[in-house]
Every structure is written in structure tokens, then in C-alpha cells.
């Protein structure tokens, strides 16, 4: 070691020992937000969009003096889409990294494993993926918030719109797991309530998208609308087979949710005239100023327009900040109380609010339709906005139905 370097290091070391306050004065301890996401596995593309949404939010906060004057740090972890890993990562984020808040998760079962850990550790959690249970007893808690839509809202909104605009005789195809089954049940209920008929409802095992055995039966039944609850890559396989049977000319195609990244992968030939709901679409920038600001910021930082789920992450991180500023602390109970007391916010897509009884975010939805090949807007403009469905608490189950008392 060179003598000069040694001297420098030694002096600095001695100074630090003598005046530990020197170090502390450089800045108050940062506020840490832990963010478990399935960065590896089948949902990696959507998780990537969420990671970017969260990063953008943290950048914006730090550019404006952070939270309560403290710098904000984002700690992203890979939950591998496995509940036990999500739970373990959450424990790590809380115990080792001392995160004051946990935001994130994608897929209901991982959300609920994360939620068990945050409840135990008394850390505020904002969940950013679809789940009916997380705001219902016994999973719900006063410090668990749910930013995303859920199967009930999604299928009631889309189901109602399809009944009014596309047709009343349906056939439903759904993936046989929790999210698929819940959507199927809500779709059937919505259809019945509005005097329609469900000619049939076909489950298939998630991830093994072979429909050719079912399609002739569906074709023969002549439904007006074919409802597809076919998440991720299954969606592409499903639409390909439906096309090859020529069914897209015999009936309307609709689904509870469009995933923009999946639609881009499938291409406009498959997605033309396919209807579906969405929580956000980047073309909303034409009508909503907050959306324009978000899309521009996102585009500038990452060079692509934002997807749908990234908005949940962005909005949830900003809600952590808003709650902390309102409560003037990071204490979970006080931040939660503050958010319930001033429930309204608008970070990206118009007015949203937290329902006080179950901490559910109530928000607008949009119905999109696939554009014809040749009519798309650039790489990402495969879909066009057909209709806006304003936020309404009645689309969710009531708090009494969710097991909340009083």
C-alpha cells in the first residue's frame, strides 16, 4: 500500500471513529420499499413492466426530495412465481433490509403468501395483482391495500359490456385454476342476471392449451360470443386454433382482460376484433393528462411505451409516498389510516379511491378491441379504445359479502 493512500485512509478512518455524526449528517436514513416480483418464469414480461413502473415512480420521488425529506430506495426481488419464495424474499426484505413498505407481487397465490408475512411483521403492503381474496376475510387486514383490479370487477364490467354490445348467448372457455374459475363464475352470474344464456363452459388445464377437441362442439352450439379466460401464452394458442376453425367469422371473441405484451407477441392477425378489458392502455395519453405525463416519462426512461400492470406498480409506490407524507411517519397503522381518511388519488389514469372498509382501490376500466392488420399504430398500438367504464364500487363485492363487519 502506498504511504499516501495509507495516510489518507487512516485519517478518514480515525475521523469517522471520532466523529460518527459526520456520516449521519450526510443524509437521513433512506426509506426502503421492498418489491417482490416474478422476474424469472412465464410472467417475466409483465413483471419487467412492473419493475419499470416502480423504478420510474422512485426516480420521480427522489427528484422531488423523496418521502418526508428522505431518499427512497427500491429493492426488487425475484419471487420466481412461487409462494414460498415470495414469502422468504419478503422476510428477507423486512428482517435484513429493514424495508418500511412492501409493494408488488404478480399472481394471486404469491400475493397471499407475501401478505401473510407483512401482516405478521406489521408492515404496510400494497398488492399489485388481481385477487378477490386479498381484500376479503380472512386474508384482508387494515394494513393490506389492493391497487389492482380483481376477477369480480373485471368480469362484471366486461360481462355487462359484452351483454349490452356484443350478444347474450355465450360459451366460456377458462383455465382451470383459481383466477380462471373465479372469472368463469362471475361471467356466468353476470350473464344470468342480465337475462342471457351460457350455452356451455369448458375448463382446460392452465398451460396446456389444446382446444381442437372442444371447438367443433362450440361451433355447433352457435354462441353469439365466445368468452376466453385464457391467460398468457395460452391466449395465443387459443386464438390460433379458433382462427383455424374459422370461428372468428361466426361469433364475437371477448375476454375479461387484454394483456398488451401478449397481444404484441400474438400480432394483429390474431387479435383483430378481439374485445377485452384493461386497467390502462398507453393511448389513454390522448385523453388523460396524467396518463400523458406517465407515458412520456416512461418512454423517455425506457424507450418503449408502458404496459398495463406497470401502472399498478407506479401508482402503488406513489401511494406509499402520499400516505407517508399525510401521516408524517412510516408507521404502518398511521399511514394506512391516513390513506383511508384521504382516499382519493390520481397518479396516472384519472380519479381512483380506496374503499374504506376493505382497502380496495376503485378505478376506471376500459374496453379495448384489436385493430386490423395494417391499421395498428406502431409496434405497440395493436388495440383501440372502444369504451370507458367509470369507477364504481358496485362492481366489486360488498364489504359484507367479503366478510367485513360494520
Amino acid at each position, binding site marked *: 500500500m502506498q504511504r499516501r493512500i495509507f495516510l489518507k485512509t487512516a485519517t478518514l478512518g480515525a475521523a469517522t471513529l471520532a466523529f460518527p455524526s459526520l456520516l449521519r449528517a450526510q443524509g437521513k436514513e433512506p426509506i426502503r420499499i421492498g418489491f417482490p416480483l416474478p422476474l424469472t418464469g412465464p410472467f417475466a414480461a409483465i413483471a419487467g413492466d412492473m419493475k419499470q413502473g416502480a423504478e420510474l415512480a422512485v426516480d420521480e420521488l427522489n427528484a422531488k426530495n423523496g418521502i418526508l425529506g428522505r431518499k427512497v430506495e427500491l429493492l426488487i426481488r425475484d419471487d420466481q412465481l412461487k409462494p414460498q419464495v415470495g414469502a422468504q424474499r419478503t422476510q428477507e426484505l423486512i428482517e435484513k433490509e429493514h424495508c418500511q413498505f412492501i409493494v408488488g407481487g404478480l399472481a394471486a397465490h404469491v400475493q*397471499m403468501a407475501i401478505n401473510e408475512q407483512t401482516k405478521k411483521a406489521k408492515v404496510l403492503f400494497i398488492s399489485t395483482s388481481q385477487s378477490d*381474496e386479498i381484500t376479503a376475510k380472512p386474508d384482508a387486514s387494515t394494513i393490506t391495500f389492493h391497487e389492482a383490479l380483481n376477477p369480480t370487477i373485471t368480469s362484471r364490467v366486461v360481462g355487462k359490456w359484452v351483454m349490452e354490445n356484443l350478444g347474450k348467448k355465450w360459451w366460456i372457455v377458462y383455465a382451470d385454476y383459481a383466477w380462471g374459475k373465479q372469472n368463469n363464475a362471475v361471467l356466468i352470474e353476470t350473464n344470468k342476471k342480465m337475462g342471457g344464456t351460457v350455452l356451455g363452459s369448458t375448463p382446460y388445464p392452465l398451460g396446456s392449451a389444446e382446444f381442437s377437441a372442444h371447438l367443433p362442439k362450440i361451433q355447433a352450439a352457435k354462441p353469439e360470443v365466445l368468452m376466453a379466460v385464457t391467460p398468457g401464452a395460452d391466449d395465443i394458442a387459443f386464438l390460433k386454433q379458433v382462427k383455424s376453425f374459422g370461428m372468428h367469422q361466426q361469433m364475437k371473441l371477448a375476454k375479461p382482460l387484454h394483456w398488451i405484451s401478449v397481444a404484441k407477441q400474438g400480432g394483429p392477425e390474431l387479435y383483430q376484433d378481439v374485445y377485452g378489458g384493461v386497467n390502462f392502455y398507453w393511448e389513454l395519453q390522448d385523453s388523460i393528462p396524467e396518463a400523458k405525463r406517465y407515458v412520456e416519462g416512461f418512454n423517455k426512461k425506457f424507450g418503449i411505451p408502458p404496459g398495463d400492470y406497470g401502472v399498478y406498480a407506479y401508482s402503488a409506490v406513489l401511494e406509499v409516498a402520499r400516505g407517508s407524507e399525510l401521516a408524517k411517519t412510516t408507521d404502518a397503522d398511521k399511514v394506512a389510516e391516513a390513506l383511508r381518511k384521504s382516499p382519493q388519488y390520481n397518479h396516472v389514469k384519472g380519479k381512483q379511491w380506496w374503499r374504506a372498509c376493505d382497502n380496495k382501490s376503485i378505478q376506471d376500466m376500459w374496453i379495448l378491441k384489436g385493430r386490423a392488420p395494417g391499421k395498428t399504430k406502431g409496434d405497440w398500438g395493436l388495440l383501440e379504445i372502444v369504451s370507458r367504464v367509470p369507477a364504481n364500487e358496485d362492481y366489486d363485492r360488498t364489504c359484507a359479502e367479503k366478510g367485513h363487519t360494520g
Partner: protein
Amino acid sequence: MSAVAAWVRRHPVLGFFVVFAIFPWVVPYKSLATQVLIYGLFALGFNLLYGYTGLLSFGAAAYWGLGAYGTGIALAKLKVTSLWLALGAGLAAAVVGGAVFGFFCLRRRGIYFAMLTLAFAQLLYFVGFHLADWTGGDDGLRGIAVPAVVLPGLRIPLDRSVVFYYFALVLVGLAVAALRRILDSPFGTVLQAIRENSDRAAACGYDISRIKHLSFVFSALFCGLAGSLDALRLTVVPIESLHWSTSGQVVIMTLLGGAGTFFGPFVGAGTFLVLEDLVSARTESWPLVIGLVFMAFVLFLPKGIWGTLTGNSAAPK
């Protein structure tokens, strides 16, 4: 290092308690230590069957899952308030599962045996998946309230992770002592005789199918205890507990640490989990790193970490 290893080998149970009493203060955070302890026990149970009896099972997840769901359902659905009763439910489920599945699987040898264990485990996975009223289905079982430890004149709540660690340490330590006792008994010696040459063991007059079955049940018992403790640790039982990937993970841990060595499984579980914890926080390509480490061990140190350190492995050939 090898001097320490040699001492631990001579005094396994004492060595275990000493090492793991200090362990949580060495790793980055307490609940990681608990995870290592529990997965170590899981691998230990698997190793009894694979490393000592020479039976490669791809269905260890079944007994881990039965233990986890047994305890979880007792606490979440049946509202049992005694921790011991809940643990007992998990152990009973695993033992019954091991006895029944073992009876069928042991009709066949080698790859057919391995496939049968896998088939039974997958069978349980789908039962768990569809019995959603009891198991929570693919959302996992939630709402597990962990009762305090109640001993005569003593009541210890387990909500702090360091307390839970030492609670788990006592139970896992007892299991380690029990396993040591089993392996040191004549029965344990026969297990290894079966591993080396089952025909010859049979010719010596041992009822090898009964002994293999007993070994299968003991293995299920240890795996079940591990699963049961994990349900208490996470207060949630994911359906993935029963998935074949859980069985695969325990095979990897055991091989990494050293199959057929007493502590190899613990060393393997510790290495795997600490590595996963540290690497996955830094890069999304962490499975690549773990995969390379695993390949390096299989290729260059086939005795595993512990087997190499102690210069002794009786890995099945």
C-alpha cells in the same frame, strides 16, 4: 476446516447443536437460518432413503407436503389450539402417507420405483389442487395461527423469528439425534447392507422388504416434520409444497452436500439457500449461477461438499 469436520463427525449430535446455536448469528438474517434448518432436515429425511438405503425417490415432496398440510389444516381449518397436536397431525399424515405409498412403491426397484414415488406425489398434488375447501387449492392454505409453545409452567410465543429458530432447533436436533440412533443400530447397518447389495442382505436372512418399508416410513416421518415446521414458519402452505419441483430441490441439496454422509444434506441445504439468497438479490440470472455451481460439484466433487471435507462418502454407486 477438516479438523472441525472431523470433530463434528465424532460427536454428531453435540456438534449439530453447537454449530446451529451459532448459525443464525452468522447468516444475513434469522429466518434464512430457520429455512436452512428446516430444509436441512428435509434433505436428511430424503438422505435416509437415498444415501443410506440406496432408494432414489422422486416423491419426497409428498411427505413434506403431507406434514405441512396436516399441521396447516389442523390449525387453520380444525382450529386446533395446541401446537403439539398440530405437529402431531402433520407427522401422522406423513407417516400414514409413507406407509401406504411405500407399500406400493417398494413392489418395484430402480427406475420403476423412482417413477412410482413421483406418480404418487403428483397424485397428491392434484388431490391438494382440487380439494380447495380444505387445502386452499392453488391459492395455498392461509389463516394458520401459530399457537404458543406450552410446556408445564412455561408459555413461549413463537412470533419472533429468533425464538422460532431456537424452537425449530430443538425439534430438528431431536430428529437428528433420533436419526443418529437409528443409523447406529443394527437396523441402520442392515439399511447400508441393502444399499450395497440387497440380494446378499436377503441371503443373510434379513426381511429386506419389511426393512425397506420401515426405512421409507422413517424417511417420510423426517420429511413430514420438516414440512410441518415450514407451515409454522411461513404460516401459509402453498400447493407447490406437493409439486415435483420440491422433490427435485431436495435431491439437488443432498447431492450438493454429499449423499450418504450424515451432515451432507444440511451442508447442501445451507449452501443452496444462502447462495440463492445472496445471488438472486443481485442478478436475475441467479439460476444460471446455481446451476453452474451444481454442475461443478457433480463433475469435480461427486462426494459433495461434506463428503469431500470429511474424505468419506458412502454415496450409492
